[in-house]
């Protein structure tokens, strides 16, 4: 028994399937004896079954009826077959229309893919049981797998399924021979569409289910008009951009990213979704040593692209290390960590960031202007996820305007660019493609990926990037800590809330906090200092 608490009222609607209603009217037009598709009888060994139509007839009819090109008619015909309104009589597993003499037949309205009738697993189980009876126990491999899994999780209904399968089988036998053949073909075609065997492309993928039917006409109540009024009022108030500007931006984006879009240009070596060959993903992993040329080209498009690609970020970090300005990137990464991290660690992280980057005399002090610093420090009194947003944006713009340009001209980048590889395109023959499909394996579990990432981060923390106070004493205004102790405050202090080493504490004598407990009071203290300076 399915759970009926959700009052269904036929409200499972699939918005991307709004075309189904339109296809139904096409189907009805095709039935017209005068202007519809011409049908012919199909001759089997003993029986003759009427109402078979050829692929070329369908395509020709569509071309005439809608005054479209033959290619478009062919695509439309394939859509009709893929949705299950017409099914092929030969080669039933390939849901395409062949514009030659191959035969098709119309599907009965019960088996049409209607928007609000979801395909039930109970029905599929009954169908498989019936097929089991007919084939005397020999099912296709994928059917066997499905049968076993359904038997496992629908076990409580299994008696019903067996009973119903037997009854439906017997009821089916009551009809005459040709009708029985047709019925079997219909049912099989229905399930090829909705439970596609391996190797069949399914057209039934759709998005989330909605509670409202997008095809119904909405009743014009006062609520409806109120919503329209609110919508138009808000549209008037919205700030507008000149269309030349926005279209120009779109055009620029399209031109820039044209060759990088796998839908528009072939991705090298080959698109894994098409050829089942995963070389592309291996070449573009996050920690790969030598990136591909396309990837490196994308880094030059904008600074955001560079930072969002982990390999690009590594490269940039290396460059900054050579330039001894790694603290900007480290701060930016710390802010990202705060934004995306768990709520439990947020407080600690915020304080670590403050200690490491923002306070005066911090080991990795970043250069942000006074106003932003004030705002940030004030926000840190009650830290939340986005408390460092202003500072992060400032640092981002700083890096973008300054370091990014220099990075693109630097030897680090030029070296990476030179070493970047450009793989050749794969040319797979059909048997090779089938072999690829058979060799498909699941990729590394995300748990393992996360573990590797954490190990990587820990390793980076222990190796530790350079602390500015060690190398550029002039940058550190107030305190000149001895080099050995400064090195203790490396990345590890913000990446993991570790205990500070006892020897390192005296550095912060100036900041007036002697232990972690007084960390909370520091923002207040610096505010007092600011105030004192004003008087």
């Amino acid at each position, binding site marked *: *028994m*399915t759970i*009926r608490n959700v009052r269904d009222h036929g409200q499972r609607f699939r918005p991307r399937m709004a075309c189904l209603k339109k296809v*139904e009217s096409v189907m009805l037009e095709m*039935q*017209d004896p005068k202007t519809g598709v011409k*049908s012919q009888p*199909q001759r*089997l*060994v*003993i029986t003759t079954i*009427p*109402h*078979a139509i050829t692929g070329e007839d369908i395509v020709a009819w569509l071309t005439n009826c809608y005054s479209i090109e033959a290619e478009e008619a062919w695509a439309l015909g394939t859509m009709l077959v893929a949705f299950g309104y017409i099914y092929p*009589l*030969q080669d*039933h597993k390939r849901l395409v229309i062949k514009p030659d003499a191959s035969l098709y*037949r*119309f*599907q*009965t*309205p*019960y*088996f049409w893919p*209607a928007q609000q009738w979801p395909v*039930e697993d*109970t029905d599929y189980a009954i169908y498989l*049981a019936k097929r*089991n009876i*007919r*084939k005397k*126990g020999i099912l296709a491999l994928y059917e066997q797998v499905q049968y076993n899994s359904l*038997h496992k999780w629908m*076990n*409580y*209904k*299994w*008696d*019903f399924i*067996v*009973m*119903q399968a*037997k*009854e*439906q*089988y*017997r*009821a089916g*036998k*009551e*009809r*005459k*021979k*040709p*009708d*029985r*053949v047709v*019925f*079997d*073909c219909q049912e099989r075609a229905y399930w090829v569409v909705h439970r596609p065997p391996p190797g069949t492309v399914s057209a039934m993928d759709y998005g989330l289910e909605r509670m409202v039917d997008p095809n119904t006409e909405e009743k014009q109540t006062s609520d409806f008009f109120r919503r329209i009024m609110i919508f138009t009022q808000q549209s008037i108030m919205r700030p507008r951009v000149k269309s030349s500007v926005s279209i120009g931006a779109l055009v620029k984006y399209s031109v820039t990213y044209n060759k990088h879009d796998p839908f528009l240009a072939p991705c090298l070596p080959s698109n894994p979704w098409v050829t089942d060959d995963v070389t592309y993903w291996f070449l573009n992993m996050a920690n790969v040593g030598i990136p591909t040329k396309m990837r490196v080209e994308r880094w030059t498009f904008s600074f955001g692209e560079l930072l969002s690609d982990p390999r690009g970020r590594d490269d940039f970090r290396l460059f900054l290390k050579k330039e001894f300005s790694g603290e900007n990137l480290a701060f930016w990464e710390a802010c990202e960590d705060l934004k995306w991290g768990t709520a439990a660690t947020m407080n600690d992280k915020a304080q670590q960031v403050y200690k490491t980057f923002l306070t005066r005399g911090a080991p990795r002090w970043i250069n942000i202007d006074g106003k932003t610093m004030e705002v940030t420090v004030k926000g840190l009194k009650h830290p939340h996820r986005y408390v460092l947003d202003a500072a992060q944006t400032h640092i981002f713009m700083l890096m973008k305007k300054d370091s990014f340009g220099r990075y693109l001209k630097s030897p680090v980048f030029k070296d990476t660019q030179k070493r970047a590889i450009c793989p050749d395109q794969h040319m797979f023959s059909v048997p090779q493609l089938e072999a690829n499909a058979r060799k498909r394996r699941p990729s590394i579990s995300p748990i393992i990926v996360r573990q590797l990432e954490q190990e990587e981060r820990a390793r980076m923390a222990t190796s530790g990037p350079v602390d500015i106070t060690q190398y550029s004493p002039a940058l550190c205004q107030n305190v000149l800590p001895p080099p050995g102790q400064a090195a203790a405050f490396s990345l590890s202090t913000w990446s993991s809330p570790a205990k500070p080493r006892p020897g390192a504490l005296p550095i912060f004598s100036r900041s007036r906090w002697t232990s972690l407990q007084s960390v909370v009071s520091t923002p207040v203290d610096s505010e007092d200092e600011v105030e004192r300076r004003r008087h």
Partner: protein
Amino acid sequence: MGGTDECKTMLDALNKVTACYRHLVIALGSTSDSQNLREELKKTRKKAQELAVANRNKLTELLKDKTTSKDDRAEYERLWVLFTSSMELLEVDMKRSLEIGQEFPLKVPTRHLIQTGMTGSTTTVAARAMSVQNMKYDADSNIDTADLKELQAEIAQVGQMMEEMEMKVQVAPWAVEAKQEAGAELKSTLSVGNSSVGVISICEEEPKDEIDEGGDNNGMITCIAGFIFVAIVVIAGILGYFVIGG
């Protein structure tokens, strides 16, 4: 155990009617649609509802009894799950028949029924559902529109019944264990009832798959008998020719 046996027979009947109803609804809107089909649907539906009500009463009576043993209770719950699953199928089929019936009215001048290739009648299926030898047709000519209103009312009724059942009877369907194991349908599939002319036909639609055997055991035997008969006639003819010729 008179209660369970009675229940089982009633459930079997309901199951049979549900299966036949589904076959009839599948034929709706296609070229085997007709006045008769609509009437068959109506009759089958009414029978199904009667059976459903009878089943429900019997099962609720059995389940409400608190003095049943654990095994009995488990058995009654299993029967309850059978009943509710049947009712769900029936409800969905009724709703779909309403939708398709509305889309394909019979009495319009330009009638476009889908040419599915099915041209035979569904009389035998309906006869099986109603457990009669021959179906009698006595409905008015506007059954396709008049019936739809009744159908809507009946759907509402069935929906209400199922909601009531869910509220009143406390049965955990997932706790029921099925008695049949996987592949149980392969046992005892000797068909009863009239199969069609028992000729083995090779379905051309499955060129790579196994040959589609349309007939069952009865058909096999009839075919062999036919061949033997033909062979005997041929031999007799040859002998006769020799006798006359010689």
